[in-house]
């Protein structure tokens, strides 16, 4: 998101925040969310892909919702009305191709309306399947989960993404020689996938009660959080949706306070992202300068620059997202809580990208450790922790990209968390002794903070440098070799 986009979205969010009628809000927020994902999607070298990717986001969202609905729904008219609105918006967007230079919502000229209709027909057919075969809804739900994971892996694995790009290029009559994994830059898909997987898993566990298609689409494509999170849960988001109407109608002081807080967060986010993070980007470690630095001290400076930059960049975007949500009357979950001030790695992961960590905890770590505990042959607790943390952190690493450096980054943190877990266990019986000596407690706290910060910062080397030999060289140089 650029500055202009943030300003425009702030205005839209502010206007939406004034809408007090539920029906109106549902409709306008739905349209705004759909339009914004087309607008925010950057251009791609593959012809029309910047139109098809947001369209696919909408189709997948509708498909997931359909696969979670009971066979007979009393709300079928409402669903059809929402579907008509969605299709109408997409068709209207495709019509902007005839506006020529006036067209501004999509990154490039949309495909012809006939092509869009032809593409939407099979999508509609697929969606109708769950109505035609109500007994197979759970199969569709599992299928949707598999498709989401499949697309996720495809996009995040460079060789697969390259092949997919080559396929799409040949399909659109473009040279496959120029195929590149970055061609498939599907804005917001990671976060969309997390939200949809959460819904599918909750639905399979009988914990999802989403009724309104319009609300569901707005939740999944919620424009404040679409680009970089936070990853909100449906239950929390929906309760916010309901409470915002009371807030807008009958509580002007709270509404004002929330709007005011929203503006403050947006301004803070803009400053963090565009003033601090973007400036630090010039002096942060990257594959280019990592190989060029000639002194250990300066290499540390670049690494600390990267460490601060990645925090300011990401937390800046989160501030903007939360602020936009506030303007609309929502309270999106926090994603950061001063992570670099934490005195141990567990606390760091409880305060860094919190919604992602919570997601993995809910849908991977907890079920995995529960399964390990339930095994007939008893495993020692430390082994369960080791396996659970290593797999969870490895997958968090791979979420950033299916490459060795992200895997190592995840394992680095998995190992760190396990070591901290063992250390905490060892320290527990000694805690009273330490508390009796305030000076020692302070030293331990300070050492804990320093070690945590250094550990996390050194871990960024793996994150920033895809080339493993180069990353290793950097570690050697940081150590003065």
């Amino acid at each position, binding site marked *: 998101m650029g500055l202009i986009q943030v300003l425009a979205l702030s205005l839209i969010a502010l206007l939406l925040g004034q809408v007090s009628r539920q029906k109106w809000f549902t409709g306008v927020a739905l349209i705004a969310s759909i339009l914004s994902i087309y607008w925010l999607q950057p251009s791609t070298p593959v012809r029309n892909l910047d139109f098809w990717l947001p369209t696919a986001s909408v189709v997948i969202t509708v498909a997931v919702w359909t696969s979670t609905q009971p066979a007979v729904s009393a709300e079928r008219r409402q669903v059809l009305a929402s579907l008509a609105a969605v299709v109408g918006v997409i068709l209207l967007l495709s019509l902007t191709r005839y506006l020529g230079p006036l067209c501004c919502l999509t990154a490039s000229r949309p495909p012809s309306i006939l092509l869009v209709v032809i593409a939407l027909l099979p999508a509609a057919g697929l969606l109708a399947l769950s109505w035609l075969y109500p007994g197979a809804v759970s199969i569709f739900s599992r299928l949707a989960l598999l498709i989401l994971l499949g697309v996720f892996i495809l996009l995040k694995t460079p060789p697969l993404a390259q092949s997919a790009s080559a396929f799409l290029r040949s399909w659109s009559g473009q040279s496959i020689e120029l195929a590149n994994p970055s061609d498939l830059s599907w804005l917001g898909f990671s976060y969309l996938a997390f939200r949809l997987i959460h819904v599918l898993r909750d639905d399979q566990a009988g914990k999802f009660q989403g009724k309104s298609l319009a609300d569901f689409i707005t939740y999944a494509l919620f424009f404040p959080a679409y680009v970089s999170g936070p990853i909100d849960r449906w239950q929390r988001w929906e309760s916010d949706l309901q409470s915002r109407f009371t807030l807008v109608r009958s509580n*002007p002081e709270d509404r004002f306070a929330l709007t005011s807080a929203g503006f403050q967060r947006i301004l803070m986010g803009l400053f963090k992202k565009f003033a601090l993070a973007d400036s630090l980007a010039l002096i942060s470690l990257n594959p280019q300068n990592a190989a060029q630095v*000639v002194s250990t001290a300066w290499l540390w400076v670049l690494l600390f620059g990267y460490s601060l930059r990645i925090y300011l960049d990401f937390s800046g975007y989160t501030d903007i997202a939360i602020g936009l949500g506030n303007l609309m009357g929502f309270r999106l979950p926090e994603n950061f*809580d001063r992570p670099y001030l934490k005195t141990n790695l567990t606390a760091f992961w409880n305060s860094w990208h*919190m919604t992602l960590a919570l997601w993995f905890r809910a849908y991977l770590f907890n079920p995995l450790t529960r399964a390990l505990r339930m095994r007939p042959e008893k495993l020692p607790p430390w082994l369960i922790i080791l396996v659970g943390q290593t797999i969870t952190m490895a997958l968090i690493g791979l979420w950033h990209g299916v490459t060795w450096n992200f895997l190592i980054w995840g394992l680095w943190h998995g190992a760190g968390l396990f070591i901290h877990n063992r250390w905490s266990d060892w320290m527990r019986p000694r805690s009273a002794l330490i508390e009796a000596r305030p000076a020692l407690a302070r030293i331990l706290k300070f050492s804990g903070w320093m070690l945590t910060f250094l550990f996390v910062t050194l871990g960024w080397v793996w994150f920033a440098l895809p080339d493993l030999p180069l990353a290793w060289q950097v570690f050697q140089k940081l150590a003065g070799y």
Partner: protein
Amino acid sequence: MPEMTQNVKSSPSLASDAASAAPGVGWRFFRNVILKGLILFCLANLLFAGWYPMDELGRITAYNFLFPGRQRLPYGDHPERAYNLSLYNLNAMFASHEISTRAKPANEYRVILIGDSSTWGFLLPVEHTLTTYLNRRAVMTASGKQVRFYNLGYPVMSLTKDLLLLSYAMRFEPDLIIWLVTLESFPNDKQLYPPLVQNNPEPVRQLIQTYHLNLDVNDPSFQDLGFWQRTLIGARRPLADLIRLQLYGVLWAATGIDQDIPHDYTPRMEDLPADPNFHEFEPPQLPASQLAFDVLEAGIQLAGDTPVLLINEPMFISQGANSDLRYNFYYPRWAYDDYRLLMAEASARHRWHYLDAWNLIPGSEFTNSAVHLSAAGSQQFAEYLFPIIQEIIAGGETPK
């Protein structure tokens, strides 16, 4: 993930938001904030436009303090790869240069080199420029002063640009000025084309008026700033450039890189077009009045008592197609031969200390243009120049 918080904290609750807002305030508060903000913003812009402190801001630098000064003036086509950028603020340019480190030490004999991209060291890392090779000789004067060379070249061909930089560099009290020139810097129509000149209209106009140069003070290419360009909003680009120059200092210090040098480049042209013209001039003679000898003269005057060594810099001499007609891409033979004659005559007439090094370096030591030297070429040139410079220093003569 052990001990992970059970629930993600939501952004500040409504209750706490409400508590943080003054009771009774409402949308009027927003209106007031926006109005006051707008007024302050307008005032800040007006004040900035009135004062326009870009010169003062340019002097604020982290170079020579937090990180070492640059060994050549800031210039960069690809800032993110060169860790360098082109800007027009002379104060900032010189403040980032090592020449601004501190007041000139009493035991330093200061030599500055001015000229074009060849002097600056295009396609050469900083350790292979002419200036660096000269500095490597680590020579002392008879009076025990350390001779120190400073690269103040800048990659555009225009004598007026050289004059502008020289006028600024004089505050650094050089003991000797080495001015490297080539014919391409001479045509009158090239004098005001460098963006550095166009974006410094006042000092250039002052030079034109002081030395009665054959240039128009009202030339439309001068970028005079209007009111809007002097506001904070209008000056955002030069302001951002000042900040970026400081930030790139970190990478300059960390890597020693100040130029993006490609692994391969198009080499200088061997086979030449059969075009006998030079700019709008046709054979057989160059009109001296259309060449900026007055700017050269102004530079020597500006140097005052400081000796100036004028050097006609080495150039590539082609052996390829049409080399009977032209020396290289820049110069037809007739024009360049005539220029050398004119330079020799002017030097003799004005008693300038002049060195014609035009054919000194073999063709193989030129890189992507007829004047850009390779590292070996630069070293060779430095070896050739050094005894001459040493002679000037040792003789204590005033070569004017």
